[in-house]
């Protein structure tokens, strides 16, 4: 079944005529994603890799019945793109754009929430349900269809862990990169809740990093609401406080958000936390072997 996106998801790409939008549209199409339309104001009537382009999301939805969108527009236009998608009735919005002002991110969050739209990101690699659909910029080839759900704040680290899992002969139900910014549309709990309900998913890998208390909240949720096993990984044990590690969200401030605190919380919730990506994959294999 997978979560968020599957073989029936009809996708539009907002900002399809840009460099990034066009490049990744081609990759997603090759993977088999059902991209039914693109949107770039003023470019209606053209095509990108055979995908028809519309001026507005509303037109695209009316013509194609799309229910998901991947956003590649520049940061200054990203909030508007999310609002447009929500207003047009899109149910899943994956916002790839990096560098969006945080006050815009607040508005995006609440707009999506108000209409019960699933917003993934921004500043995220997207979502892939291997063998079914890919909405994002991940290296799709490393994933294999299977029963491991992955949810992660980090892009490359996700690929590394998925790669290790695939190399052990296992596969993924869905892989969700929730993004590294401070204000994001969906957090660990939102995604864990979906995996818990998903028939295809038997075990979940949670990839966290320093900053915020989202992993701590997730641990609380796992201990009370999750029946499926969860395996963890937390990056940033060696990160010094007060220095931001790339992601806007990855910073230890006022003693909050340390890797130690997160690992401790997860372990207390019964989550086995791997020390290396390889170890995470091995724990997953062992746990699946038991069940």
């Amino acid at each position, binding site marked *: 079944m997978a979560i968020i996106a599957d073989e029936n998801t009809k996708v539009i790409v907002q900002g399809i005529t840009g460099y990034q939008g066009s490049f990744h549209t081609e990759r997603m199409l090759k993977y088999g994603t059902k991209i039914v339309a693109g949107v770039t104001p003023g470019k209606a009537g053209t095509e990108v890799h055979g995908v028809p382009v519309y001026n507005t999301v509303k037109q695209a939805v009316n013509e194609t019945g799309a229910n998901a969108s991947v956003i590649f527009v520049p940061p200054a236009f990203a909030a508007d793109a999310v609002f447009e998608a929500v207003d047009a009735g899109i149910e899943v919005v994956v916002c790839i754009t990096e560098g969006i002002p945080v006050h815009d991110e607040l508005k995006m969050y*609440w707009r999506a929430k108000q209409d019960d739209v699933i917003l993934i990101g921004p500043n995220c690699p997207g979502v892939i349900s291997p063998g079914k659909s890919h909405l994002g910029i991940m290296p799709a080839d490393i994933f294999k269809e299977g029963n491991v759900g992955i949810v992660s704040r980090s892009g490359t680290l996700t690929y590394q862990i998925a790669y290790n899992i695939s190399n052990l002969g296992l596969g993924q139900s869905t892989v969700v990169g929730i993004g590294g910014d401070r204000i994001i549309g969906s957090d660990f709990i939102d995604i864990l809740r979906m995996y818990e309900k998903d028939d295809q998913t038997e075990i979940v890998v949670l990839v966290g990093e320093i900053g915020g208390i989202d992993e701590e909240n997730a641990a609380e949720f796992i201990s009370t609401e999750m029946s499926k096993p969860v395996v963890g990984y937390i990056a940033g044990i060696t990160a010094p406080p007060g220095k931001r590690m790339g992601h806007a969200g990855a910073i230890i401030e006022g003693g909050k958000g340390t890797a130690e605190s997160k690992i401790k919380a997860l372990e207390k919730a019964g989550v086995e936390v791997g020390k290396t990506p390889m170890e995470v994959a091995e724990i997953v294999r062992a746990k699946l072997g038991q069940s």
Partner: protein
Amino acid sequence: MLIDNKKGDSMKLYEYQAKQVFSSYGIKIPNGRVAFSPEDVDEVAKEIGSQEVVLKSQVLVGGRGKAGGIVMANAGDSASKSRELFGKDIKGFKVERILVEERLDIAKEMYVGITLDREKKGIVILVSSVGGMDIEEIAAKYPDKIGKKTVNPVWSLWDYQVRELLYEAGIPKEHFRDVFAIIKKLYNIFIRYEAELTEINPLVITSDGKLYAADGRLNIDDNALYRQKEMAELRELTGSELERAAESKGINYVKLDGNIGVIANGAGMSMATMDLIYLEGGKPANFLDIGGGASSDLVKASMELIIKDPNVKVVFVNIFGGITRCDLVAEGLVKAFSEIEMDIPVVLRLAGTNEEEGRRIIENYMEKNPNKLFLVKTMEEGAKKAVELGGV
């Protein structure tokens, strides 16, 4: 006239700049201005004309008072006292400007601060009838003197919320109206300038009952600077020399204490690489993220940057190619080896997109230069090798 750190970080205004913004919104600030030399300090002190003035080092770090960064003076000795301050090192920051202000007759100190609430996706306002120390310290010592409220940005700030805050913080009735007005103004500043944090601490009540922002912070979201033009103009590079060089090239670099240089793609991957080195008993010399889809030139520039750190004994390049192409990374490294004088060993792990092409480029190069490069299969193996080569 301003500062900043890394990409994605917030732009921190100096106290005197934050106060200028507060003042433009009608919040009272002490009489005074910034000075860049002892002569300048003398002049400001005379302009102020009051008996006593305060010389406040403008450095972007907390706790400057305890570190000797704040000195009392008067019109007569302000220049000489400022001479001792200029150039002084305050927690790693050199004093280059001093805010000269009238000394306030303080009857009471309070606190007002506004920042982002990432859990509730809102804007959190903190008010306390006690001030002059860190909000964490206030919260620990006087938990019943703090009012805290997260405002939903959809609805913005309403009067009833400010009232609730003031009652909660135990703001005295006679100052209710003034503190109320200051919170509304500070919130407007927070929104108008797309701040990540703004703070008045202490918010001083003088013995004649007037309220002053005696100290102030205002940090602006870096991502918003393209439309916060006034703030963007105040921007200046800070951090260590290497960090400034990195930023000017668009490289995400943070200097650390160890001796094993790290280059990786992705922030999470970079941190994980650092952590692996630590697990193997080594110490990373830096965080460096080349991001997604790096060019060979960026890879070369990253290598150049890292080896400028004299502590670095070995570099571990750890790439998992998604958008990033392994062949381009390999090309960048070969360029770096050919064009830069570098005699420290490099451990390289390449996986993912165009892995084969990348390995071939590297292997070709290694045939001619066998001792410089160590190609490994996994990041775990790479970390082990780097620690082995770098020693502890």
